[in-house]
């Protein structure tokens, strides 16, 4: 979508989807251990991740993704950060929240899906699709929204954002899992997201 012929010429010298963070971290590792090879671990390598709160366990790519947990106004949230968008406007991010009755403005899973699916000008939402996962039946939908990014710094231009949203019921509570990317490269992360979902296990139900 964003690609123009001139752009390809401009960026021909730069690998378009190489993440600068991963690249520079590897360079630092190579500088710290001069004897070791700097070749990347294949992206197919996945490792299990479990947040400090032991909310769940799921697989993440062993390289290029960094996951952290923190507490925000809605409760604990785990965010895994993947590669940067080529424009640098945002980084692919998977977030996981457990929405329970302690969450402010709690809504049931069904109501929450409907609320999240409200569309307006510049925001399109797909139909809800069921996705059978080992942990249960998830409701999955997509949101495409145009936003001007970065909001606070210029130049700020409109970027089409894409979200995969999965709601996994767990009794009256539910897990809300979201992948945020630019629409221009969301398909690059689709398989990663599905694999993350398939490996997702709430710790209590193991």
């Amino acid at each position, binding site marked *: 979508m964003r690609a123009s012929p001139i752009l390809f*010429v401009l960026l021909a010298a730069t690998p378009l989807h190489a993440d600068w963070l991963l690249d*520079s971290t590897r360079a630092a590792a190579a500088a710290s251990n001069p004897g070791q090879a700097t070749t990347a671990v294949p992206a197919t390598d996945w490792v299990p991740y479990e947040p400090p709160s032991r909310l769940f366990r799921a697989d993440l790519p062993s390289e290029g993704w960094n996951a*952290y947990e923190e507490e925000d106004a809605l409760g604990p949230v785990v965010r895994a950060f993947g590669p940067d968008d080529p424009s640098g406007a*945002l980084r692919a991010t998977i977030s996981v929240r457990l929405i329970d009755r302690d969450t402010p403005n709690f809504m049931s899973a069904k109501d929450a899906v409907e609320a999240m699916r409200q569309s307006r000008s510049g925001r399109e939402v797909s139909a809800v699709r069921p996705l059978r996962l080992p942990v249960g039946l998830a409701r999955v939908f997509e949101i495409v929204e145009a936003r001007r990014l970065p909001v606070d710094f210029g130049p700020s231009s409109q970027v089409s954002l894409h979200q995969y949203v999965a709601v996994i019921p767990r009794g009256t509570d539910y897990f809300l899992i979201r992948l945020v990317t630019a629409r221009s490269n969301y398909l690059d992360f689709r398989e990663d997201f599905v694999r993350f979902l398939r490996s997702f296990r709430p710790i209590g139900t193991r």
Partner: protein
Amino acid sequence: MTCVVIAVCALLATPGAPRAAAYISPAYDAKIAPLDDLSRELLTGNGYALNEDGRVWDKINESAVARDDMPFLLSRLASARRLRALLQINAVITRYDSEKNLTPQDKEAVRELVRQNWIVFGIVPRRDFRPYFSLQELESLDRIPPRFEKMSAVLMTDPAIDSPTAAPPPTALPVVPATVKPWLPTLSTPELGVFRPWTPPVVSSAAAVTAPPPSPATIAVATVAVVTPPVVPAIATTTAITPAPQPPAPAVLTAADYEEFVANGPYSKEGRALLELIGKRAPDFCLPLLHRTVVGLIPQIVFDGSRTGASLRAGLVHDVANPLTPPTITLSPGPVMVSVKKGLFAERSDTLLPESLQAWSELGVARPDLDAFATEKTPSSVENGPWGSVRVYPDASRRGTYSTFEQAGELLEQILLLGLAQEGFNSSPYAARRWARTARLLFSARLQEEFGQVAFLDPDRRTELGGWRDRSAEEDDLTIASWAGSRVQIYDPRRGPPLAERARNQRQDSDCSREALVASLVEAARRRARRVGILETLIEVKLIDPNSAKESAKIAEAEEATARARLTSSPPACATSSTDRAEGLRRSGLIAAEAARVERAWRESKREGDSHAR
């Protein structure tokens, strides 16, 4: 069955066999395991006496307390004290419809009760009463670890044992006795039981510890405090639990002090109006810092879009190395925009551009020669729209207008960021930004409620506020994904939130020099990625010549390669010690938690049909 009974009897009769039934725990001996001040207070205030022979005498049962029973007894007494305190607090709060309506006297009474009983409060009541205290007070209170979390002896910490074989305290360190202010309970509710006023503990020299040196942040705070001496009350300290004397608390400025300063301060009419507005409408949690920062640092307010750097709405210039120069907050009067159609069937969309020449020179390209950048050019027309009053220039570039209320919100955010930096709460830019952004959003939400609409915000801020109000999880995820991108990098995806970074550093005992090398390499790569990303955007909107963009991209790559070669051949030195970093991250964690708590409280207050029975 008979055989089993006989076997058990034989076993019990066997010399040397364990005789559980005959076991009697010896009396607790305070000479062997001295009681700390809290334990003494709990015991002596509840019908127990400490005999000179070291035994703890139960005056009601006329017997000595057994050693094994002591943890359970202390836990039960602490629980009773906690319950009594909560009932007293409840008696105050339930006189009002809402906690928000408490009079200052009753609010102070609640604060006093919480302070007195903080030591016996567990995690949950501590969290519930945090809104009653300022960040500085909480920092002092949080030094007191929760000791009696529940009615459980398992979770209770034993009294400090100061046995003769224990290592003596280091004599090289100067011993500073803890200064404790006597508490005068402001409430008396005899119907709730006997409420005994707490008496200051006797501090034994063996248990006292050395005061930590004041942090640079504390020193900075002390220099900011210019009006009144600290009035933060002393925290309940018992030597075994909270031995460290508290650092000097910053001055507390009242709203009247702030208003008087603003009225007579070195501000233009517009700047004064903005400061007055935020003084009245800013959320409560940020007011102390707002007052201190404005009165202490006297930030200058300038309306000039060309001095905001790459920021679109407001920028901050603060030379830390030259403290005599007051910081300057620049506010943009309105954004410069160009409208572009991306694709054959796409709608036109606005791209907002920075005005600052410095922002463009950092990109390695010249600032486009747009009419909207030139102050002397006359607009061909003026139209009103979502960007306010928009001046349209002959070359189709446009300049919008930020409303006074939006500028006030931006000013509030910048002042708070300045104050956080001044007081040493900016080790994590993410936490500082999140705290200040929460204040700005609450400020805007309050104005929205008063006005009944959000037309005072520009379209982007309106979308942000709407998303934050109605779909906060989604808005937060989008915001942080954007903050983690190379263009912004408020959130460092390599380090994560402050407490996660701190925990990781403690786990790994990370090598400072290696960390400095990684950070420098990552920053060099980020600068290159940011520049290339921005150049992409500018080419898309046809604002710069592709050839000059290509040259600039090549220069950026060469700069990164040079930096990488230089850094790997001679790694950088450690910037700060790991101890300082850990302390800074701890403070950042505090403000991140406070931002979450304040936002949560606001959301809960907005919930319709709120019921505790839920």
